[in-house]
């Protein structure tokens, strides 16, 4: 474990000290296939940590393990010191973890506002009797929920606000990503998992996405764990980067260090490229 750590570790931003999320020796086996092997990861409060790695490295599987869509074969996952292994996905949300998906899973035949309202499910208390009789408490709760949904949409500017009654299936791709994030925010999470939030976006949209992801940490105080393929994005935005390859963590540390790490380059570009790289570096030094 210590062999993978880079020597200089940054001060964690915000509430320092305890890790908010801690994976220890997490392994996931699907029959004979080992998707994730003995991964350790710590995410401190208010950090932006990226997980990168080639396709098939087990990044989304790691996310699914954290959000309890899969159960780890071995190892432990702790949130704020308490183990979350064995909980159901909805319990994970109540504990304070929310996520978005790689290929946007919105409720297609509901409006933007309704999607965000569903996101608030854990924050509302109305049960079956409350729904039937609608006492004043429930009515206020619903009204407050609507207001909050509008505020959340407002985080992204006026684009979503103008379209709050639109069915999400009619929205543009970038807007749908934002709605998905708004829905995740609705659950008042401590930790936000973003699975390839800039996938499919062009440069302008990517820049905008980076800006609002930073604002999620700066303004809302969220801790963010992201999976990202665009190295420029990860380098520019993350406090720390962890690199997975074939299910193992092969490097972790500050962006500049990870970028130069040989194992990382080999993983992404393959062995011959690594040797080209070595040759280039030697040439520079001459």
């Amino acid at each position, binding site marked *: 474990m210590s062999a993978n750590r880079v020597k200089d570790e940054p001060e964690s931003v915000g509430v320092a000290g305890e890790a908010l999320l801690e994976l220890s020796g997490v392994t996931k086996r699907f029959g004979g296939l080992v998707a994730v092997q003995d991964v350790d990861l710590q995410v401190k409060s208010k950090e932006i940590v990226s997980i990168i790695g080639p396709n098939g490295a087990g990044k989304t599987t790691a996310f699914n393990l954290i*959000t309890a*869509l899969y159960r780890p074969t071995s190892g432990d996952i702790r949130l704020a010191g308490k183990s979350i292994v064995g909980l*159901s*996905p*909805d*319990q994970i*949300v*109540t504990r304070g973890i*929310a*996520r978005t*998906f790689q290929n946007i*899973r*919105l*409720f*297609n*035949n*509901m409006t933007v*506002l*309704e999607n965000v*309202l*569903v*996101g608030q*499910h*854990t924050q*509302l208390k*109305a*049960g*079956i009797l*409350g*729904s*039937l*009789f*609608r006492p004043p408490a*429930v009515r206020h709760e*619903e*009204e407050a929920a*609507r*207001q909050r949904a*509008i505020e959340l949409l407002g985080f992204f500017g006026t684009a979503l606000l*103008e*379209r*709050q*009654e*639109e*069915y999400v*299936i*009619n*929205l*543009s*791709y*970038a*807007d749908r990503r934002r709605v998905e994030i708004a*829905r*995740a925010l*609705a*659950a008042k999470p401590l930790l936000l998992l973003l699975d390839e939030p800039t996938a499919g976006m*062009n440069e*302008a949209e990517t820049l905008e996405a980076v800006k609002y992801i930073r604002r999620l940490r700066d303004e809302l105080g969220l801790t963010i764990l992201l999976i990202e393929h665009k190295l420029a994005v990860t380098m520019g935005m993350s406090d720390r980067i962890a690199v997975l390859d074939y299910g193992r963590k092969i490097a972790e540390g500050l962006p500049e260090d990870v970028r130069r790490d040989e194992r990382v380059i080999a993983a992404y570009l393959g062995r011959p490229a690594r040797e080209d790289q070595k040759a280039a570096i030697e040439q520079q030094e001459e």
Partner: protein
Amino acid sequence: MATLMSGTLLPPARETRLLVIKWVIALLVPLLVFTFVWNGEAAINQIIVGLFIHNSTLGSRYDWTTLIGATIFFVLFYGLLTALAGYAVAADSGRQNPIMLWISMVVFTVVPIVLISIVNDLFVGISFSVLVWVPYFLILRFWHRSRPAVASALPRLTPLNSEEQASLVRRAIAGGFWFGLTFAVLSLVVDLIYFFSGQYGTDSGILLIWIVLRTVLLPLAGYFLGRLSGGLALRHTLKANGKKAQSSKEAIDPRLNPSLLTGLSASRSREEARDLVPNDAPLNSSGARNFYLVLLFAFLLCYPMIDPLLFGPGTEGRLSLYGDAGRYVILALGLNIVVGFAGLLDLGYVAFFVFGAYTWALVGSPQLTVLTGLVSDPHIWSWLFWPMVLVAALIAALWGVLLGAPTLRLRGDYLAIVTLGFGEIIPIIAQNMDKYTGGTNGLSGIYSPAFFGVQWNVSTPMPYYYLMLFLVALVLFANVRLRDSRLGRSWIAIREDEIAAASSGINLVKTKLFAFGAGAFFSGIAGAYFAAKLSTVASSNFSFTDSVLYLSMVVLGGLGSIPGVVVGALAVYAINVLVLAGLDNIGSDPASFLHPGYAQLQALFPNFSFGNIRNLIFGIILILIMIYRPEGLIPSARRRRELHHQAKEDEEVEVGALDATPGSAEFEKEVRVE
């Protein structure tokens, strides 16, 4: 009064005049057909005579409740139509061609009235009308498509200032007043003809008074009703009063906030604009819908009292049948929760109905004595029906949870098969536990409910009819509340995407079990009612075929859409029980127009009767609907979007859209990325 007269009652400005003419003719023609061609006039005369001259032969035919109930209905009926005339004149944007409207009115209202009067049966008349409506509808659609595609302008979404709002109300008043006046004059003419041809006989005195009163009152009523409907129309307009939206509700409701409305896509804003006034199709807007709902409510409430006046003898039989339709509505609404909202395909819904029926059957009948030795006095025990409805519903809900639990991890087809299994098992268990359930012969002598001063037994269907109305109203209310709540949203979320729902904090197990439980709860209510009304419960009453029937009601009406499911249930019931039996009745009557054809068919196919080919017809109708309108008769907006999203009408891109450069804000807005 003079100023009022000059302002609103004199022939209005030209375009208003055209609108008034358009709508007065459109609404007056069906009303006149109803009143004079069919039984409307005769019914009203009978009411008048009955109310005031109770001794005459005509007057004593009907009792007080019938007369008063019928009076209420007719007052509401004519009043609402007058108000609707006012509303339509106010709400019409003037673009639609009057001729098209008149033809549509004739097809959709005059044809059924005439057909009902010919066959003297409500449902057979309506089903014959459907045979006319469907080809008409298809012709219209074909004609619309064959015309060159006019770039349909987005509906005019400009707010009205206070001057325009005032003229809206004036138009409504004009519409109502002229409608009332014209109708009064025309009825006066017809009645004078009747009078002078001596048809009124000894009752003519009272009727003459009535005619005079009516001629004076109708235009007056038209004025006030017009003003009322003008106010209603105002509530559905985009107002530009210069004030910012104050309450948060206005900020959210896109119909009241113009800026939000412009942000919607073309198809969506068309949907929203349909509810706004002015409008190209005012009869479709939500304001007009209020009129229909009140009229429907009055009709249902007063039906037992107007039936003898409109249809003649045989009310009791009809009431009993129509009351039964309500049971199907409740069952369909319950199944709608499971299948429509939560998306859990339940093929064994009849099982919960069985639980509900046997719960009351075991407690409220001599069987209780057999089982527990408790001797029950029918008069006192009957009161137990009311709490037992709740108990039956709760027991059914409990079984809903128990039978739903094993299905939780299954998807789609597998869930359907397990529920199908339960749907088969439960009736068979009921049949085999004959010590408790009376086996195949079932239990009889089940007590009817008790209520103050009301006689309930098999030969008095009226109390059961009202009980059913009450239960349906309760169930509808519960369903609407559930749909618009946190629970309803979680059901729909599960239907849309289970994983995303779980990742948003929805507990899948709990929510699905709630869906099963809530659905079963309503079938328990229907079961208890069924047991009490029929007074016998036998396991042969229940089978898998029933489960399929209930499912077909939900799918036919529109999955997940509450009005759709109600209509679907009534349609399926009408086809299966009423229409075909009615056709048989009419066909075997030698005097009817159907008889020759009917006799021919019987000669060709021995044993032919409409009842026998019921399943064939039902199957054909289902297949046709699934091909041409899979979203159901009245789909929820979501469902129509799901099934027709690829259709051209949804994806109209305005011409200038592709000029926007990719990457700019306008480009995103116009081109939908799928």
